[in-house]
Structures are given as structure tokens and as C-alpha cells.
């Protein structure tokens, strides 16, 4: 949450050391995908077996449930609609907070990036708020906005806003010199420059920040819900604690992890599909 995620650092393909053949034979790619899937499935089986074995060795299924017990809890929670309701409630908060926070972050970032005076005056606050965890605001937010949805969504807005704003500032002030000169040569006005040059040129930075913000949103929603909500995955975790229903807790964690992972992959997919041209001449895929 405290780092500017620069596109160079965060949007890098992790596996780049392998030299790739210029012409890829389709069957080769297919074989590789099959091998990969096989490996993943195989490792999954091994992992689940190890988990089951560990749980039996621990021999207190009540405290350390195995995969079967968790699967049972998952099925129960699915059947009675708890899981759908919890996941829906959490996802709604995440999406609402993330979208509002990111949009606000872009606006704040563009304004601060455009004005030395504004950014100079805001600098202490931006640096300061970056280091205040969202949960620390739990008290004031409750006092000001009550215990309803607004408070929880606001905490997620908060957790998204600063990462996106910082990245937008970074992107909009690191515009390539020729790009900004070109805008001057074309005679672009302040608004034209902002919307036709600065904003699109900052997209890779904004996206890198938004990806971190999405991860933050998934983390913040849990704590926000644990401190008070009627439904949500965080509530499931909390209820599991009070009633010592560990399989329920594991189910919630499992769904959280999978939902977070799926959202992240969808985000990356969208970026790689629609975002390539914003990255200018680089053709590196987001990993």
C-alpha cells in the first residue's frame, strides 16, 4: 500500500528468462499448456492429500478441519444461500469502493500532477495518509457515517484512492518530453493536453496502481466487515470465531482467495486485451 507501483516493476512478465522460438508450433504450445494444467492439477491433488493427512494427524478436526470437512461446509453454505449472500455483499462493497476510489484517485492525481502549487501543498498529506492503515479510520468513519454500508465502502475508497493517485501523479509528471513538446507544437489548450495527451499517457501507471488498489480492497473488506456488518465474507470469518466453527472460516478464506485471484486475473486479461497501445512501444504482457 505504500509503494508506487511503477509499470516497469509491477507489470513485468515474471518468466522472461526463457528465449522463445520465433515461430511457435501450435502443437508445441498445446503440449506446454497440457503439461502446465497437468502439473497444477497434480500439485493440487498432492496438496489436498497432504492437508487431509495433516488434519488427521492433528486429530482435532474441530480445530484443524481437513479438506473434506471444509468441502462439506462449503456445500452447506452454498445450499442455504449464505455463501452467495456473503460473497455478493463483499464483492459489492469491493467493486463500489474500488471504482469510486480509483476514479477519485485519477482525478486527484491529475490535479496534483498538473499544479506544482497544489502538489506541494498536498504532499505532506499524501505521504502521511499512505501510511495510515484503512482500519485506523474505523472509529472516525463510524462516528461520521454510522455503521451502515457507507462506512465500509468509504474505507475501501480510502484504500484505493492513494495508490491510484500516487501512480497517476507519477505517470502524468513523467510524460516523455517529446510528447509534451508535441502537444505544445500542436497548440493544445490546457484541457486538450490533459484529456488527449496526459491522461492517456498515464494509463499504464494508473492501471498498475489500480491493480494494487484492487488487492487492497480485497484485504480491507474483510477487516471492515469483521468490525461490524450483517453479511459478507468477513462476517463469516467473524462468526466462525465466535462460534468456533473453523470449517466456515476456512470456507470464507477459500472463497476470498479464489475471488481475489479471479478478479486479479480478469483485470490482467482486460489490460492485456485493451491496454496494449497505451503502453506505447513496449509489448510486454502484464503478468
Amino acid at each position: 500500500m505504500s509503494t508506487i507501483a511503477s509499470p516497469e516493476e509491477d507489470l513485468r512478465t515474471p518468466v522472461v528468462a526463457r528465449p522463445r522460438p520465433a515461430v511457435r508450433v501450435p502443437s508445441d504450445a498445446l503440449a506446454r499448456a497440457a503439461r502446465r494444467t497437468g502439473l497444477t492439477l497434480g500439485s493440487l491433488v498432492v496438496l489436498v492429500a497432504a492437508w487431509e493427512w495433516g488434519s488427521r494427524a492433528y486429530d482435532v478436526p474441530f480445530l484443524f478441519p481437513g479438506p473434506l470437512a471444509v468441502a462439506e461446509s462449503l456445500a452447506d453454505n452454498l445450499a442455504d444461500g449464505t455463501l452467495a449472500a456473503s460473497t455478493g455483499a463483499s464483492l459489492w462493497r469491493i467493486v463500489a469502493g474500488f471504482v469510486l476510489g480509483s476514479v477519485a484517485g485519477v482525478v486527484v492525481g491529475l490535479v496534483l500532477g498538473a499544479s506544482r502549487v497544489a502538489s506541494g501543498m498536498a504532499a505532506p498529506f499524501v505521504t502521511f495518509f499512505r501510511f495510515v492503515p484503512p482500519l485506523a479510520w474505523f472509529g472516525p468513519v463510524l462516528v461520521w457515517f454510522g455503521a451502515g454500508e457507507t462506512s465500509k465502502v468509504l474505507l475501501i475508497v480510502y484504500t484505493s484512492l492513494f495508490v491510484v493517485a500516487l501512480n497517476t501523479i507519477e505517470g502524468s509528471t513523467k510524460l516523455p518530453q517529446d510528447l509534451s513538446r508535441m502537444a505544445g507544437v500542436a497548440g493544445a489548450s490546457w484541457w486538450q493536453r490533459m484529456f488527449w495527451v496526459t491522461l492517456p499517457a498515464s494509463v499504464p501507471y494508473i492501471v498498475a496502481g489500480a491493480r494494487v488498489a484492487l488487492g487492497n480492497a480485497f484485504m480491507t473488506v474483510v477487516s471492515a466487515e469483521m468490525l461490524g456488518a450483517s453479511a459478507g465474507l468477513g462476517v463469516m470469518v467473524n462468526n466462525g470465531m465466535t462460534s468456533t466453527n473453523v470449517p466456515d472460516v476456512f470456507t470464507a478464506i477459500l472463497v476470498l482467495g479464489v475471488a481475489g485471484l479471479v478478479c486479479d486475473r480478469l483485470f490482467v486479461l482486460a489490460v492485456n486485451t485493451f491496454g496494449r497501445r497505451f503502453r506505447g512501444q513496449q509489448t510486454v504482457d502484464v503478468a
Partner: protein
Amino acid sequence: MTGQPDVQTVPPLLEVSGVSYSYKPSLPPVMEGIDLSIRSGEFFVLLGPSGCGKTTILNQVAGFEKPTTGTISLKGEKITGPAPDRAVVFQGHESLLGWLTVRQNVEFPLKVAGVGTGERRARAQKVLELVELAPQADKFPHELSGGMKQRVQIARGLVTDSRMILMDEPFGALDAQTRGTLQAELSDIWERERRTVLFITHDIAEAVILADRVGVMSSGPRAYLHSIVPIDLPRPRRRTAEFNEYIDLLEATVSAAKARRPLETGTVAA
């Protein structure tokens, strides 16, 4: 003779007078005492080694930087900043907007100027055909080769009715073959369009291929404009004996400029 208008009677379009530039007052100027006039419709090449301040002069004409002393004026008006009457072709391709197609990139200066969609399209199409990029019009910059990207920039420079086009070593980053092709094409385009061009290079052959007149600069610091060599060759220019004589002449001039002494042969008429 190439049948150009009698250059002596045309008033200068661009006047550079007494220009010097230093990064800090404590440092010796990069260049000083630069006097130069460029006539309307002329292809002027500024030739010099790296560090002589030739790019700085272009940046000052463009309005990106200001001279420490002296003035630069266009049609008698002092240049204070960048404006659409002076288009720029940059050496690198970072000035291309990666999120726009080739056509949209070329249309960009017109869009900024508020030109309507129909006219924008028509004018962009015309210059795209001129630089032979029409088939690639709907591609994105990252899908093009380095040479094609420079064609996009040239098309973008031509699309407005700018008084001047400023080119800062536009072919410097290209391979020799592509550079040769683009030089020939640029010469051809210039002959048809007769736009005023200020072109920066350190490549002597490039200067002979393109220029009406070549300004030869000495090396910095305290670089100065050593001499101006008119190139009186018909276009398209091929490697004839005359062409090679100009190469020899410019090489001699560049050496003389480097040693800060006048050219001994005295063959330079300008």
C-alpha cells in the same frame, strides 16, 4: 541551376540574430553569435558535431527553449513559445500517441485546432498518401517499423499549414538503408510541397542530399556558425561527380570549422 525563385528577392521567413546559449551564467556558452536567416520555401540544413548546440537552435526556433542572448523571429514576430506555425519532427518516436491510430495521430494537430471531421479526414488522407502510409493508416504506432514511425511524424508535420517544419535528426536512429529511402522521399516531398524546412544533422551526405543551403557549425563550447554552403544540384540528387565534390567541400568546411579557421580554398560563394 534548378529553377528556384530568385532567393535574393524573397524576404527571410526566419531571422536568428546574435543568439547565444549557456546552461548557467557561470558556464561558457554552448554557442554564441549565431546569425542566420532562412527564406520562405527553403530547405536549410544545420550541420555540426554533437555538442555544438544545433539541436538547441532548433529547440529555440520551436520555442521549447529561449536564447540566453539574441532574438529569433518568424515573419518579423519574436518567437516566445511553441505554436502550430512551426511543426516539429522529433528524432525518437515518443511524440507519437500510442493509443491513437496512424491516421488519428496525423489528424491530431487539426483536431486540436478544431478542424471539422470531414476536412480532417481529407487532409490526413492526402498527406498519408504523400508519405506512402495510406495502407497503414489504421494501424497503431507500435505495429510500425522505425522508418514508418518517422513517416507518421513527417505526415503530422505536413498536415497543417505551418510556416516551417523543424526536423531534429529525424533519421538519426534508423538503419542506413531505411535512412537512404527516407532521404530520397523527403527530398521528393519537399520539391512538391515547397515547405520551409530547418533540418538538423551531423551526416554530411544527408546534408548534400536534402539541402538548398547548409549551415556548418564549429564544435562547442562557444560554437559558432562557420559558413553557409549553398548546394546547387538538381533533384533528385544522385551520386554524381558533382555530388561528390560537394561532399568534399563540406568535409573540408567541417574540418575548418572544427579547427576554427576560415576555409582556405575560398570556393564557398555564400
